[in-house]
């Protein structure tokens, strides 16, 4: 049970806003030492896993392309596209994106969009443009909601796809426990939650429009 101290270190460290990289190392040390490992053993175990997980950071290869496009005016062009659209609002744009993202993820296209390649250069500027004029506070909220919408769309869409990691994990785990389920059965039962997520987050997005309008009237 002492190994749980590592989790406590994480919770406290993040809550007190220490640098997360240091918090992570401290948490690994705490749990490792509590489990009876020596400091060098913990550091070696951490280093080994750090090295095998490099693929997580390889996705940053996409930044140069996004940067060049921003330099050439991509964000500005994204804003213009929206400004030429009648009836566009931040909430409606995000709602349309939510639907697209969920459907794409359900078809297995989880990598077709993302925070670096879609939200920063396209979605957030579009949502902002549709909500102008924006005070600084409201602008921050529009950006945060754009990022949130990408996550919600991804999470509650991907499990409808048969060959996604989480479905395969479930099939494998149940198989070990002597229960056979078809991937298709799992993905079908992900649909009710996906529909609920669209309704819940979609409703929040439309309410978000109203809130933005209110702060605009007050200003």
């Amino acid at each position, binding site marked *: 049970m002492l190994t749980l101290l590592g989790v406590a270190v994480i919770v406290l460290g993040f809550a007190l806003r220490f640098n997360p990289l240091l918090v992570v190392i401290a948490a690994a040390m705490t749990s490792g030492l509590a489990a009876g490992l020596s400091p060098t053993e913990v550091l070696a175990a951490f280093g080994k896993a750090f*090295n095998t997980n490099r693929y997580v950071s390889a996705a940053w290869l996409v930044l140069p392309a996004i940067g060049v496009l921003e330099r050439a005016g991509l964000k500005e062009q994204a804003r213009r596209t929206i400004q030429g659209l009648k009836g566009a609002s931040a909430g409606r744009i995000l709602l349309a994106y939510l639907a697209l993202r969920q459907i794409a993820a359900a078809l297995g296209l989880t990598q077709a969009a993302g925070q670096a390649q879609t939200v920063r250069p396209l979605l957030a500027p579009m949502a902002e443009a549709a909500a102008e004029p924006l005070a600084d506070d409201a602008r921050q909220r529009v950006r945060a909601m754009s990022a949130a919408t990408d996550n919600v769309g991804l999470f509650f869409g991907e*499990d409808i796809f048969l060959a996604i990691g*989480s479905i395969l994990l479930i099939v494998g785990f149940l198989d070990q426990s002597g229960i056979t389920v078809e991937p298709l059965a799992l993905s*079908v039962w992900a649909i009710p939650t996906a529909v609920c997520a669209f309704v819940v987050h979609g409703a929040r997005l439309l309410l978000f429009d109203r809130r933005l309008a209110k702060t605009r009237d007050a200003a």
Partner: protein
Amino acid sequence: MIGLPLVYLLAGLMFAAFAGLSAADRDNAKRFGNAAFWGLFAVSFLFGDRLGDLGNGVLALLLAVIAGAGRLGLGAPRTTTDETREALATRHGPRLFIPALVIPVMVLAGSLVLKRLTIHGAPLADPKQATLISLAFAAIVAAILASVMFRQPPSAPIQEGRRLMDLVGWAALLPQMLAALGAVFALAGVGKSVGELAVMITPVDSRFAAVAAYCVGMAAFTAMMGNAFAAFPVMTGGIALPLVIGRFHGDPAVVCAIGMLSGFCGTLLTPLAANFNLVPAALLRLKDRYAVIRAQAPTAFVMLALNVALMNLLAFHR
């Protein structure tokens, strides 16, 4: 065979270039901190397999110390002004979207086609890594295409990449560090302890309570671990298999599908899911590190409640 080593080589070269340009960037007061940070990142990608486990551990520790000591600043590569960008947007118009669309299209095509291509019977690319390999190539093609189409200077991809990378800063490394933490936690048996704890406090005589404990447990444990994959075997083995499925005869497919999605509600709530929750806050220059989590929280809590209700409704056929 094309595989992760090639992707790592590309990433290593990119971070090495970021490091070199950071060191030469006199407008950044902390330029040597940035150079050391991206330089070590490059070393990890280029030589990680030769450093040994302890060497890699020391490297990760150094990266954390540089970031924790506040030695990372913002590089200031020469870029276009807002006015120039408006003018460029007028000139190029919707053509600007073309390279941006090349990325998803190539990733899709690549992940479908790469798996099937063979040379003399051997696969051309590692089928398990098809998506990541496609992403790496798509990113390079898009960067070159954008530079040529919009007549950008040759240094633009690397300099602009560095500008964005500095904006993300230490958060860029956090997802990988958390994955490593997950491995140490597994080694130390943290998951087992949490599972035992969860089983201890789960009421065994009410179906609704067992379902609620499983869903909430998945969300809470996922929030603690940063991803639902770590939580799933522990919570399902501890609560779902013996109680929800074993005792109350829940349909395993429904229980597990909705259980996993309950875990995703936890992912929306935790800073430990760094690439979803903290990295975008850095990319979008949000003042509050946790602003994205705040924006997601209401959706996450409502969805968790709905998952409990759905599991109760759908998992028990009789």
